């Protein structure tokens, strides 16, 4: 039943994403004071505006993928919001501005990443929170770009539509989250499955956080 949809990845279209990136650093999202929607939610409902704001921390520009540069990237001008001091618990991590699903993104000096595949599958879940059925299977590849990094605290989520509605993860047997340590230049792959109906695949956002507090790599596009 598995139908491979996407992504024999090339390195195109990345510059476009960089150009379109909007830096919104320093905006604090407070409950009840949701800011107006960002560009992706124009014309959306009140709810969608709120959700867009809710999900995002500060947005950073995307960088070229590590795959297109030789060796670890040099420290970039944009500093990741890797706050670790007291008060960090209140601070939502930054995120890179979205790149297409088949593009790469880099947190300079930390990691670069891409989606190796986004596939339509029939997921098989077990237990509370799991719904078997139509799903997208996302294969994430990260390449180390700085000091050795533990991926045990990595986090990958999938959201759909302009409202960035969360898709629920499925404990499908093919799931194999990013784990272990990632050295500079090394690569690691993780597989994630999310319940996504056929009709919700036109606007898919995949957000990848390599480690707590690190910016999210954001991939967005149509998966169907």
């Amino acid at each position, binding site marked *: 039943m598995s139908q491979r949809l996407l992504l024999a990845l090339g390195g195109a279209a990345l510059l476009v994403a960089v150009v379109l990136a909007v830096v919104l650093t320093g905006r604090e999202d407070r*409950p009840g004071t949701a800011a107006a929607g960002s560009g992706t939610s124009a014309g959306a409902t009140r*709810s969608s505006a709120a*959700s867009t704001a809710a999900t995002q921390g500060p947005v950073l520009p995307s960088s070229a993928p590590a795959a297109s540069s030789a060796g670890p990237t040099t420290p970039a001008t944009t500093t990741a919001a890797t706050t670790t001091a007291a008060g*960090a618990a209140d601070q939502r991590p930054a995120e890179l501005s979205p790149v297409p699903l088949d593009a790469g993104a880099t947190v300079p000096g930390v990691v670069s990443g891409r989606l190796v595949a986004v596939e339509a599958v029939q997921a098989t879940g077990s*237990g*509370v929170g799991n719904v078997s059925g139509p799903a997208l299977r996302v294969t994430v590849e990260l390449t180390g770009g700085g000091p050795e990094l533990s991926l*045990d605290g990595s986090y990958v989520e999938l959201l759909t539509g302009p409202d960035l509605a969360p898709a629920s*993860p499925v404990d499908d047997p093919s799931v194999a989250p990013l784990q272990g340590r990632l050295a500079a230049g090394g690569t690691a792959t993780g597989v994630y499955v999310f319940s996504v109906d056929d009709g919700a695949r036109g606007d898919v956002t995949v957000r990848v956080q390599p480690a707590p507090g690190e910016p999210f790599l954001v991939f967005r596009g149509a998966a169907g």
Partner: protein
Amino acid sequence: MTWSTVRRSVAPLVLALLLLGLAAPPASADSAPAGGATAATPVTVSADPLPTVQINGVAWSQVVVGTTVYVAGKFTRARPAGAAAGTQETVRNNLLAYDIRTGQLITSFAPDLNAQALVVTASPDGSRLYVGGDFTVANGQSRLRVAAYDTATGALVTGFAPAVYGQVRALAATASTVYAGGSVSSVGSVGRNRLAALDAATGALLPWAPQPGVGSTAGNRDGSTVTSNAVLALVVTGGGSQVVAAGRFDSLNGTKATGVGALDPVTGATRSFAVNRLITNQGVNSAVWSLSTDGTTVWGSGYDYYGPGNLEGAFAARADGGGVVWVDDCHGDTYSTFAQGGALYVATHAHDCGNIGGYPEQNPRVNQFGLAFSQAPVGTVGTATLRNRNFTGQPAPALQTWFPTFASGTVTGQYQAGWNVTGNAQYVVYGGEFPRVNGTAQQGLVRFAVPSAAPNRVGPAAQPTPTASQPLGGAARVSWQATSDQDNGTLVYRVHRDGSSTPAYQVSVASTWWNRPTTSWTDTGLADGQHTYRVSATDPFGNTVTSAPVTITTTGGTTVPPPPTTTALAQDSFTRTSTAGWGSADTGGAWTVGSTATTSVDGSRGVLALPAAGRSASASLAAVQATDVTVQASFATSSAATGGGTYGYLAARQSGNTAYRVSARFTTTGAVEVALVRQVAGVETVLGRTTLTGATSGVVVRLDASGTGTTSLQVTAWPRGGTAPAAPQLTATDTQAELQRAGAVGVAAYLSGSATAGTQVLVDDLWAGPVGTRPAAG
């Protein structure tokens, strides 16, 4: 120290006695237990499904605050009980509340979550509802996977908005702290390893950061090398003095803690929780799914699917130290537990409870989605455990006669029914994906009530289908197989002759859906001609089913004297069939068997199965309480003895594993060694011994016991088919204090540890009467 060491060094008879004393009792209790409520037979809720608001998806979690049930799940609409899908709907996105007394949606609470919710819990004072899951927006406000609602106003709590990254599966709250678990990787920009604690007032992250660790993948039988340390359940115990976590982890802070463990509520330090040294559920293929608590006892439940796990049922452990209270070794994933009124209710799909004396695996398989157990330990877990023998010999609860039927659902693609069970003192509520309960459309949510608040309309499942025959002149034998009842273990059967409203005979018979014994009653002194009989079955609430009439024409009524009246306290000719358990004796009430898996009736004999060396089986008539008593029975074996032989036992004054007994050991030479035994708390003393030869088709043994203070004992034994000797072969007197009182009548069997093949002990013509009397047939 191994079992074989014990076997070589201790007399096998003693072992047999020890084993017999540990056997689990049969299912019995229900919504009106025969003989009244006891710790083993608490009064359960009735099996009547009460009308309840329905959902168009799946409920994953519930919590009751006062009379309000809060339901978290994956759904978008609610509709009233009785409404067809798609009609009379009210929008409710993934969270709703209903009144536990009426089952009606609470319209004033209208939360809205933009993705599924997996867990709800309440603050200790009930003022707050905490919800967790996959959502990022609650009531239009940013809430990353955790939110709080004011239960008084229904409003989202504005000051509680932690940014949690990773799925939230578990929440537990004290007045000051909210503990969260799941696949959590960080809160805000601070890393957390599946567990986090939040300030209840501000939502601020607290320093509490225990470290669940992954276990070996070697036990994965599907070859998976993926690991997980996800947390799936949390409770606080002792008024907030401890946190107990469960899930897929194998350690906590580097200390071995498989599937479940206890933590300091402030420092996060690991505390001992002994049951986690028996449980082997961990990793991506097995886990401890759920926890519930009353503050001092913790109940958990687990699953295994191609993993290393040994727990698919539930366990009960003391909150302080995690010592085992009992293990419900029913096989079939178990998702949730709730303790109420001496019983523990579970959401499960258990298909085999044979290892704790409940229903054995059926063919085709039968899944029970809702079960109840005694909170009290009653029996022991047998040897047919999953994966390893860690639970064998542990205390086990008694399965209760409470079997509502849930239809499995299609919402999740997992074909389950209930995913969660909770309640209050009067109600037990299930949530899940079931479309029907007891055959009535009722989607996703349902209530059950204690008998005083229930309609109690669930009665005997089917009308009896009696047969009639003429065993002798002027007599009619009426036989019927018992029906069963979803919430009553004992039904009264009445036989009505020739249309009379007054029953000619009535008898109470214990039955369950998997064990429906056949009862026979002989009506004598009939006038020649046609007679009709109807048999009715009635539960304790008066729900009655009545059979169609069965007709027989009898003859010879004037030439045959009525059969002699008997003074028997107990009599059983075993002319019925039962594949699990012994049913009820012809006289003397229901047999209590050690295990339904090793006891059956084949139409002419009671079978005590001994499938392997060292195994035992037992049955007793608890209702026959006698002091001065003669007991008699015949014993045979289905195959020649091997090793140290095959034992049959006949007991008087039995209580637990204290009794006067006659043992008959069938030896490899063909001789039968007969011994008079005093058994006290499993320890036996032989009071006399003799050997019988020529007993090729079995042996009849008789035990006379009389007197208190000093009991006189006599044993008479003779080959089956022969005649009884005039004088007893063994006589003794005994003053053992524990035995100077009335007790039950029982039989048992044991296969010596050195036997090389399984066998059966076949019991027939059991009889008991006042001491000195004899069966009518000799």
